[in-house]
């Protein structure tokens, strides 16, 4: 029996005929549809999880393209009008010698989003392949991805705050560019993608592949 084969390792709730509420943690008997406590929908496994992950991820990646191509900030001062994209801004900061700020912007706006894409893709693919490797590490990676995703919004916040503060008519005005919206969408989509990932699938590899 499969169960016997798994006896030496951990037993999943599903094996035990239980299902846990994802919201409040209440454990129910398998087959219960709605959580008695929080009336949340109970699912032992989300069969559409990977589809959602991929869908949100692709949407996030699509949104990430204009976020990099279009200007993030529209700065118009008395003498000039400049538009800076994310990478352009980083390069400019580096040219000005502000390595620290450049690093922050680069990490928050480029490395983290791209890292998230890669991480989520890796997780999704590994689940699809029923990989049994590094299950713990993958779970940790998922935790990190989910946690760190929101920090990507730091760029958007900076743009939003600057746009709100620097409105001095002709002297100096900062407006958000299309990239700010795209970037925010990209971050939101990847966060949704990360959330759509059912981390329990990581552990199903043992089960579904006898």
């Amino acid at each position, binding site marked *: 029996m499969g169960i016997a084969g798994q006896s030496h390792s951990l037993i999943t709730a599903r094996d035990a005929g239980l299902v846990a509420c994802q919201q409040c943690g209440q454990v129910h008997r398998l087959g219960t549809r709605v959580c008695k406590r929080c009336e949340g929908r109970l699912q032992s496994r989300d*069969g*559409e999880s990977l*589809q*959602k992950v991929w*869908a*949100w*991820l*692709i*949407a996030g990646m*699509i*949104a990430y*393209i*204009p976020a990099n191509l279009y200007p993030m900030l529209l700065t118009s001062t*008395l*003498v*000039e009008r400049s538009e800076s994209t994310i990478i352009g801004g980083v390069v400019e900061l580096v040219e000005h010698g502000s390595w620290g700020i450049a690093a922050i912007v680069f990490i928050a706006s480029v490395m983290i989003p791209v890292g998230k894409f890669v991480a989520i893709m890796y997780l999704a693919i590994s689940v699809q392949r029923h990989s049994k490797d590094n299950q713990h590490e993958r779970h940790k990676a998922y935790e990190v991805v989910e946690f760190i995703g929101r920090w990507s919004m730091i760029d958007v916040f900076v743009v939003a705050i600057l746009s709100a503060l620097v409105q001095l008519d002709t002297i100096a005005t900062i407006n958000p560019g299309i990239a700010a919206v795209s970037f925010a*969408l990209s971050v939101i*989509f990847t966060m949704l993608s990360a959330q*759509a990932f059912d981390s329990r699938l990581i552990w199903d590899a043992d089960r579904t592949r006898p």
Partner: protein
Amino acid sequence: MSEPTNPGPAPFDVRPVKKRIWQRLSLVWLVPLVALGISLWAAWQNYADRGTLITISFENASGISAGETTIKYRDVTVGEVEDVEFSEGLTDVLVHARIDKTVAPFLDDDAQFWVVRPDVSIRGITGLETVLSGVFIEGNWDTDADVAQTEFTGLEQPNLTRANQRGIRVVLRADDGGSIAAGAPVLHKGIEVGYLEKPELSFNGRQVVVNAFIESPYDRRITSSTRFWDTSGFSVSFGTGGVSLDVSSLASVIEGGIAFDTVVSGGNPINEGHRFDIFEGEQQARDSLFLDPNAEILEVAVLFEQSVSGLAVGSEVRFQGIRIGEVSDLNAIVVGEATDAQVRLQAVLAIEPSRLGMGGDATVDEALELLSDFVTRGLRARMVTGNILAGTLFVELVEVEDALPAIMTLTSGDFPVIPTTTSEISDVAATAEGLLARINALPVEELMDGAINLMDSFERLANDEYTRATPAALVALLDESRELINSDDVQAIPRDLRDVIGDLDGLVAEANDVGLIANLDSAVVTAGRVAANFELATQNLPKITADIQALTARANELELEALVASATDSLNAIDAFLGTDDAVAFPREANAALSTMRALLDEVREGGAVANVNAALASANQAAKAVEDAVSTLPALAARANQLVTQTEAVVNSYSERSRFSAETLATLRDIQEASDAISSLARTIERNPNSLLIGR
């Protein structure tokens, strides 16, 4: 629990039936699809809207930077520079720019681009906004969409005329572009109504061609009879009308400018690009108004015998004071044959028949006929001074009343010839030359000679031994007189006289009876008159001195010619006077007179008269009775003695003034000497530098 022992059906691998792929698809896939759709749509939109790529080549691209420099059309941004690069061979800078799709179709071959930079000129500051914002490229094209182009050559200078601007563009031609600058104003009655574009050399390189744009509605003022002229700077012209100074607006003084006016009506409307000439000044422009370039020109020749310097091609030809044409050619031709050959200076006159009062459609033949008619009635050509200072001449056709009969020679030579009459040329050079010639002709040297002769004469007179001897002789005479007076005999005379008088008392009564006293009296009066005459004669010398002094004074202050003439006359007169034998003889004669006098005194002293008197008195005393005989001789003697004394006294008196006389003479001589020096120095100065007469130094 039996199930494990009774193998039933093998446990089913219960799996749900695989749903079809679209059934398994989550709705969440719509999200990336929408995102993709939006992205693609945005990309397409962007691609579709990004405009047409054009390339503008500039010689230099200072201030143009990719991504920043915009392209503006009528101050609206219609594009942006995307890239700046060099053309092959680095000859040009290629500026690639995106132009809005809506505008791109209008970029046909009349589109022009130039870089707007700050420009400070006398007419104001333009492009100031580019100081802060950086340069931009301004484009200009009309509103007709033609065959769109993508390759353009940028202008180095801004094009001043908007393609859509209302007005008219005319082409102006000038011989010299020195006073024409791009942007210079075109003035009409003093207000700016247009401007010049960039001047360029004409195709053959002979003229400067510049487009002028006249803004609407002033363009309606331009007809085919409009004339343009140069108002740049200020012009000072010496014309036949004298000096005229023209100053236009300050901007045109510095930057140059063109003015136009349409004086006469009746011009035809012009089309865009009509060609006009730029005249040097308003006067020439107005004069030319009557010179219809298309009118027929009658060319006649005038043969002058004298120099035509001052006459030039373009000099006016006037008839009764009115301009009827101009000199079109000047050359020398040979008239006559073989030994009779002479060189004549031929001036070809271009005469407009219409200016002869024959109406606009007068033909050349009619005009020639008219002129020929005039010539038989006495019409002659002559050169007349137009302007004394400039020495310009013009040709005038005048009717000479007593002219020798002549006709126009129509057949010989290239042109009909109008006979000439005496020209009226009076130029400054000739006048000045004449003045100098007259000064040269002044008898300055004769004057000097006369003065020197006068000096010589005076010197000779003064050095004459007789003149020198005169004082000595006088002193001797005085000494002798004193001696005579002091002599015992003369001293005795009073005593004797007293005796005689005593005797005479008696005699007087007697004498009264015989009229002796009356005789004596008359003798004395005569003696006095003679003495007065001599004195008068001597007094004339100071008067001459005074005359000379006055003359010198006049000479010092008088005008040159009068002075010279007067001084010459005076000196000649004085010279003549001094040169006469009488004058030369005067001292000698005076000396002789004194000698005679001395001899007389000697005679008197040495027993002549005095002894005789004494003897006579003695005789009288002794022979009282013989008195009656003596009485007849006594009055004569007394009269003679008296006369002598008086004369002596007069001479002494007159010569007592000798010192003053001499001083005056000497002063006179010095004055004359000074005057002569002054004249001589003046003469030298004039000889050396004739100009001084003109310029006063």
